[in-house]
């Protein structure tokens, strides 16, 4: 598992640069419950092992059909990051009914292609949101909900919330409001669908292109880059 890790062009997270070392983040050997011996190196194993790659459409003729298919079945990652997540459950009730647009909530990032950042992001949540975003498969889209993602919103002078979301990950559609009504959310989804059908929703490729810039911004804000650790 840890034999082929290569860090291409990623800054090393060694003990000198890490201001918050923890004892359980050293290299160690653990035994799984089946008795198997596993070598674990937490700082190497939990981040992107290779740089993400750009995904270009393989068959251009079919791409229009594929874009239509992607836009008609947007699966949302069910990660409510802030205040705005309180307007997401009413979306799934029969009154506003997001399911008729093909929108479903999924618990895992590996099976979703739309990430709704609902509201403000504190530094602790930003780290996990970035990790979830990087775990989603291509093509992926990001919708930023609320005015906290645009310019900081109500918490513009807080020491723990970020002010602009598009410095840390690429955003496709902004939905303004505090909080936006479910009808506004559906209007935002319609705009996103239009953008996908025209082929302009290239958030994932933009992340690849500006990878160094995004990573530098993220590392400037997030001073403790260690992730919570399992014991095997």
């Amino acid at each position, binding site marked *: 598992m840890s034999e082929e890790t290569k860090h291409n062009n990623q800054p090393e997270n060694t003990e000198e640069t890490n201001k918050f070392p923890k004892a359980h983040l050293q290299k160690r050997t653990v035994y799984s419950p089946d008795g198997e011996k596993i070598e674990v190196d937490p700082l190497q194993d939990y981040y992107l092992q290779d740089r993400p790659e750009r995904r270009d459409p393989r068959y251009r003729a079919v791409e229009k059909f594929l874009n239509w298919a992607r836009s008609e079945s947007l699966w949302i990652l069910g990660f409510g990051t802030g205040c705005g997540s309180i307007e997401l459950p009413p979306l799934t009730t029969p009154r506003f009914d997001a399911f008729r647009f093909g929108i479903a909530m999924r618990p895992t990032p590996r099976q979703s292609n739309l990430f709704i950042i609902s509201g403000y992001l504190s530094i602790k949540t930003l780290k996990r949101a970035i990790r979830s975003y990087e775990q989603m498969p291509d093509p992926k889209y990001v919708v930023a909900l609320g005015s906290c993602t645009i*310019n*900081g919103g109500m918490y*513009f002078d807080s020491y723990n919330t970020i002010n602009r979301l598009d*410095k840390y990950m690429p955003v496709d559609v902004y939905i303004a409001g505090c909080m936006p009504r479910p009808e506004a959310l559906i209007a935002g989804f319609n705009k996103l669908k239009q953008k996908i059908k025209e082929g302009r929703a290239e958030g994932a490729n933009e992340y690849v292109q500006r990878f160094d810039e995004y990573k530098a911004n993220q590392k400037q804000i997030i001073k*403790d880059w260690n992730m919570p650790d399992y014991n095997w």
Partner: protein
Amino acid sequence: MKEILERINQQFNCIGHEFQPENLSWVQVDKKQLVPLLSYLKHTEKFTHFVLLTAVDWIENNEFQLNYLLTNHTLHQDIAIRVMISRDEAEMETAHHLWQQIATYQREIYEMYGIDFPSSPRVHESFLLEGWDGIPPMRREFDTKKYSEETFFPRPRPEGKDPQTHMKQKLYPNEE
């Protein structure tokens, strides 16, 4: 309630006490009298419910004020105990052996104000902030707007659309 205040005044040397109407009274004691007073209130006077532990920063007088709030559920009365500690050596005795939940309050006060409660469980672990290396943020000398402008990238306002100047011109067109 006033009898209870009299008894407390006699047993512990209170610096001040006050009875406010609507079920709230204040008692101010010295730092060393605090834990005996809490123990007396819990076991003898039946103030068994602990509500709140807060800190206030009086930077002008160079001290911190700690407030402990207790409730008596038979008399339906609250009592608040005030303790002043110096700002330079910010340390206080822990009271978590009386109520287990005080440990959480003490963790938060250590992180936000820098007041140490030695021998409180898990008090030096980070509670709300992750990766924080500045001064404790709730102290008065920490300027949060300046910190936010420097660290997070604020979006610059578009030209000519400042609401304050616009409204000033609209409401007071003749003033300069």
